[in-house]
């Protein structure tokens, strides 16, 4: 049998026929369908639901909405466990398991609560001030653990997520009365409308206020309006969808929750959430307002709630947070809570109102009902450790700045409902770049002006009566639709009307004055989540952290999970008082996305696991059926080496490299960038982008070249071949394939529009298979290509176009290994067949497939540089030994002028050299620092290997004035050991290049 002690007799919006069981901190409870976790906990009289962040003080539920900063819990178990969920936003389901956070072993009994005994010694900035020596980072790990907010779930998320792009004429954010009327009136004009609301049920305050609209119950009006919206084809209503980010040009992101609560990973449940990326011609913000707490001593005890939340719980969930409720307010709104509670049969023991006696509809009604009114009173103390027991009140003087001495007394109550006014939810408005202004009557920041096509309606503007909300929504909804290009309709329906037009008569009350000159009263909490008090803010002001940005960072107020939804305005006002400024002068921080925390999975969408980073695939698939070990290499999956039974990785790599030096090796270099450059000005164009002379290149010949940017830095290198007078094939590094083609295109379109040149990137169209080694020619001759491959006819740096069984084939005699090599370009679809054919034909010559690792050894032995490995964004051709080709060329090229700038001529620049460690077996990690005799840093190792050909450890390195140091000895600092190494030329193997011309 269900025992919900705090449940009221009124029906509420819960279904008492459907009991739901749930567990909180290991204890079993029951609630009803329609409850939130928070309302169910209140129904079960659970007072302490969490501990505060710094001092571990017991905390109870504060609110009934997204602004909750106390009841932050972990929900679910195992892989589906979610941290930092707001109990007020978790819809109850059968079997729900939740735990409190930031406490051990439970919120009821928390060992770390001992911190609260030392609260006086833990002021703002305490950790930063105390743990300075020798460095904050020494302590950070320990302190962060002690201040944890829930345990991160380190299991893979069993749920999946999707994304959707949407467009609409009018996007309405917020499905309360203002938002609904705005959507209805925009739709009436003919605009396509999206209406989002963060709650599972639309209606906003109408779900829990007792109001009437157009002479009927507001809930009935709500249901009719929603039915009407549903029937319109140009309207999409999206409940449970929270707009989290507002970006430029009316781009709004929203998170739509689709899954049934937290039924994580249950097959067939569909995605849990969907990220909406919405582009709207016009946006209407109807985001409402959040009630703000009153600031008084010990205002953080369980049992002290926002007045609107108490009303919300009673009217909607039929629960009362207490049996005898006092109210503390500075405006008329709290009186509604008192009236509603009385109607539900809950005892209201007093309304403590800081305002002197005045006349209003609300006050008269309270008086008629015989409620005890303490006008001109403030709360000066509270008692009750895990549940409020008593509040102490005292009369304020005429100006409200001090208490009348000796007149205080105690009131017994188990709940205090407080209302300090309203904070408009201006987060999205601010994210949109909108400016805020301080509304003195409303005592809060409201939207002022914004460059984007954006308007705000309802409580976010400080329009707090229902009638104002309805009128504004109705008027602005059609106005923005017309602004989006729709014609004003001939007949417009009248705006809905409500009786609620009462004023709130708010009188700001930002903090409680000193009591009888005694400042030792309890702390006045401003930010409950971070334990920030009035004293902390005063200290911040005293220490000079007066700007709102400093205040936030120094005290942590308004940070993390709740982003100061309840605390910001109070904190700014207290800072204003401490520095003799108005709140408006203190200003606010600019709000940043997201409005509510977003699960990373939602942002990733379907791009997880294999889809998170798609590799480019080589056209040859033989590798993956023949023990090729796949590795990521500049975004391509390439074989690092081919494993063989009985071999270590190193042995395999050595075997492959030996084949290239001794017989023949076959290498898949299809990722090599390939760009066709054609047109009457092709030679002139390339002459301007290469440091080399291009115009003198004969048809059928190939040249190695470098490209620079205009700073003189190397951006790419590779060979280029002249296939015809006006036809070149340019090869680039794998990384440069896309960027170089785009860069060339930009030059032609923007700078040299008079040149007739066409750029076609063909990397994916042509595969490149490289045959390398002393026996490579014999292998290639077996294909019968009809090309005389002898060195006399087809020397190093030649190109020929031919056919193989009717398939186009281009043969380049170039080398990246130092041995006689042929690069074969064939249409990608035939790459796998050609690969297998070459392996078959070359069997007698000992042909061996070669992976990336072995290739790297071969190119280091030859000192061939890899752009981006040897070079940085500063490296010029002069730094890597290419001064001669540059000085021989008279025509201008990109980067040429910069090479003679003084900085690029300095003698102490990093220059490419070789290093030979004296320990021939030494393994040198790339990036190893190179030191001189004085152990000063003079450079770093860029590439290294253990060369079997030379039986030595060799490195390529960038060293200051390196060329002048050739022959001398430097030091490689590996770990704590120094290893001497001789500086040499970076070409270790066959320095004259004789083998290339065999």
């Amino acid at each position, binding site marked *: 049998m269900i025992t919900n002690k705090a449940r009221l007799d009124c029906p509420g919006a819960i279904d008492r026929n459907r009991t739901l069981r749930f567990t909180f901190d290991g204890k079993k409870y029951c609630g009803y369908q329609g409850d939130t976790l928070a309302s169910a906990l209140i129904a079960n009289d659970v007072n302490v639901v969490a501990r505060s962040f710094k001092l571990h003080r017991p905390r109870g539920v504060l609110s009934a909405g997204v602004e909750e900063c106390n009841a932050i819990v972990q929900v679910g178990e195992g892989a589906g466990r979610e941290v930092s969920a707001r109990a007020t936003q978790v819809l109850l389901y059968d079997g729900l398991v939740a735990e409190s956070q930031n406490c051990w072993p439970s919120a009821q009994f928390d060992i770390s609560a001992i911190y609260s005994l030392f609260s006086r010694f833990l002021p703002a900035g305490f950790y930063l001030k105390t743990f300075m020596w020798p460095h904050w980072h020494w302590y950070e790990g320990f302190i962060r653990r002690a201040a944890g907010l829930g345990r991160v779930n380190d299991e893979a998320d069993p749920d999946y997520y999707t994304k959707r792009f949407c467009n609409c004429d009018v996007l309405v954010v917020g499905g309360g009365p203002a938002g609904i009327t705005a959507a209805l009136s925009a739709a009436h004009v003919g605009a396509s409308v999206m209406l989002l609301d963060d709650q599972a049920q639309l209606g906003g305050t109408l779900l829990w206020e007792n109001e009437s609209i157009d002479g009927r119950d507001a809930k009935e009006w709500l249901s009719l309006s929603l039915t009407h919206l549903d029937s319109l084809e140009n309207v999409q209503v999206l409940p449970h969808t929270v707009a989290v980010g507002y970006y430029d*040009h009316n781009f709004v992101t929203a998170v739509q929750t689709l899954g049934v609560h937290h039924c994580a990973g249950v097959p067939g449940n569909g995605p849990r959430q969907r990220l909406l990326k919405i582009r709207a011609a016009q946006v209407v913000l109807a985001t409402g307002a959040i009630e703000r707490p009153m600031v008084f001593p010990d205002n953080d005890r369980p049992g002290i709630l926002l007045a609107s939340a108490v009303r919300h719980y009673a009217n909607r969930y039929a629960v009362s947070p207490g049996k005898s409720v006092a109210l503390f307010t500075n405006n008329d709104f709290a009186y509604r809570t008192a009236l509603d509670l009385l109607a539900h049969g809950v005892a209201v023991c007093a309304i403590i109102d800081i305002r002197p006696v005045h006349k209003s509809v609300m006050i008269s009604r309270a008086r008629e009902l015989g409620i005890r009114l303490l006008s001109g009173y403030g709360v000066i103390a509270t008692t009750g450790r895990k549940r409020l027991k008593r509040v102490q009140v005292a009369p304020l003087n005429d100006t409200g700045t001090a208490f009348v001495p000796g007149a205080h007394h105690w009131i017994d109550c188990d709940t205090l409902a407080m209302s300090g006014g309203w904070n408009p939810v201006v987060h999205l408005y601010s994210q949109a770049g909108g400016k805020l202004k301080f509304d003195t009557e409303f005592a809060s920041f409201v939207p002022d002006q914004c460059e984007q096509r954006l308007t705000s309606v309802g409580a976010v503007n400080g329009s707090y009566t229902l009638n104002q909300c309805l009128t504004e929504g109705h008027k602005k909804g059609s106005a923005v639709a017309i602004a989006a290009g729709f014609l004003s309709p001939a007949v417009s329906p009248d705006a809905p009307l409500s009786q609620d037009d009462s004023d709130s008569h708010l009188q700001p009350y930002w903090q409680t004055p000193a009591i009888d000159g005694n400042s030792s009263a309890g702390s006045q909490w401003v930010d409950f989540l971070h334990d920030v008090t009035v004293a902390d803010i005063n200290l911040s002001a005293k220490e000079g952290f007066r700007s709102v940005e400093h205040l936030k960072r120094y005290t942590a107020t308004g940070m993390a999970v709740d982003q100061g939804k309840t605390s910001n305005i109070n904190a700014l006002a207290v800072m204003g008082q401490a520095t003799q400024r108005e709140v408006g002068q203190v200003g606010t921080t600019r709000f940043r996305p997201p409005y509510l925390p977003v699960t990373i999975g939602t942002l990733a969408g379907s791009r997880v696991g294999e889809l998170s980073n798609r590799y480019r695939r080589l056209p040859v698939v033989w590798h993956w059926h023949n023990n090729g070990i796949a590795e990521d290499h500049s975004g391509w999956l390439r074989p690092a080496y081919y494993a063989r039974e009985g071999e270590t990785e190193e042995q395999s790599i050595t075997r492959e490299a030996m084949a290239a030096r001794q017989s023949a090796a076959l290498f898949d270099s299809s990722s090599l960038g390939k760009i066709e450059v054609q047109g009457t000005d092709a030679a002139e164009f390339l002459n301007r982008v290469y440091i080399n002379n291009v115009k003198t290149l004969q048809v059928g010949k190939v040249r190695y070249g470098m490209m620079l940017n205009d700073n003189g830095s190397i951006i790419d290198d590779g060979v280029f071949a002249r296939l015809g007078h006006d036809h070149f094939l340019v090869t680039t590094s794998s990384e440069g394939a896309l960027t170089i083609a785009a860069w060339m295109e930009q030059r032609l379109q923007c700078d040299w529009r008079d040149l007739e040149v066409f750029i076609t990137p063909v990397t994916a169209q042509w595969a490149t298979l490289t045959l390398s080694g002393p026996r490579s020619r014999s292998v290639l001759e077996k294909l019968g290509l009809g090309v005389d491959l002898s060195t006399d006819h087809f020397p190093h740096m030649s190109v020929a176009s031919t056919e193989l069984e009717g398939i186009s084939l281009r043969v380049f005699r170039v080398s990246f290994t130092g041995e006689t090599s042929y690069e074969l370009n064939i249409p990608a679809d035939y790459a796998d067949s050609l690969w297998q054919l070459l392996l078959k034909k070359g069997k007698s010559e000992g042909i061996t497939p070669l992976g990336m690792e072995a290739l790297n050894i071969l190119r280091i032995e030859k000192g061939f540089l890899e752009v981006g490995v040897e070079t940085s964004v500063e490296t010029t051709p002069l730094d890597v030994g290419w001064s001669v080709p540059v000085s021989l060329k008279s025509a201008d090229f990109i980067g040429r002028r910069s090479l003679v700038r003084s900085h690029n001529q300095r003698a102490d620049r990093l220059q490419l050299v070789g290093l030979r460690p004296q320990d021939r077996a030494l393994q040198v990690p790339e990036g190893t620092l190179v030191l001189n005799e004085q152990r000063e840093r003079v450079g770093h190792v860029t590439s290294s290997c253990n060369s079997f050909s030379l039986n030595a450890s060799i490195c390529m390195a960038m060293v200051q004035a390196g060329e002048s140091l050739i022959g001398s000895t430097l030091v490689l600092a590996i770990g704590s050991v120094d290893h001497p190494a001789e500086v040499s030329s970076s070409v270790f193997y066959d320095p004259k290049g004789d083998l290339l011309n065999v």
Partner: protein
Amino acid sequence: MIQIDCPLCGLRDESEFTWGGEAHICRPENPDTVGDEEWGSYLFMRQNPRGNHRERWCHSYGCNQWFNLIRDTVSHKITSIYPIDQLAPESGDDNE
């Protein structure tokens, strides 16, 4: 994410475009004859205005064509889009 009205393809999201920096940067006609300072200013000195900025964009994931536009760096309002080889319309010179 802003939207840009590509002169060939129409209104598209920023993610389809590549930004090319300030427009109308003139490379000295004869680099050999200019001093280090003038060359350095061509390479590195940019206006970086608060307000209207004339800049190059390319619709890389569409027609792959470059064009110029004037964008307000504060409000991101785009007031003019014009061909790559044309001078900026008058309105773009507010910050000169």
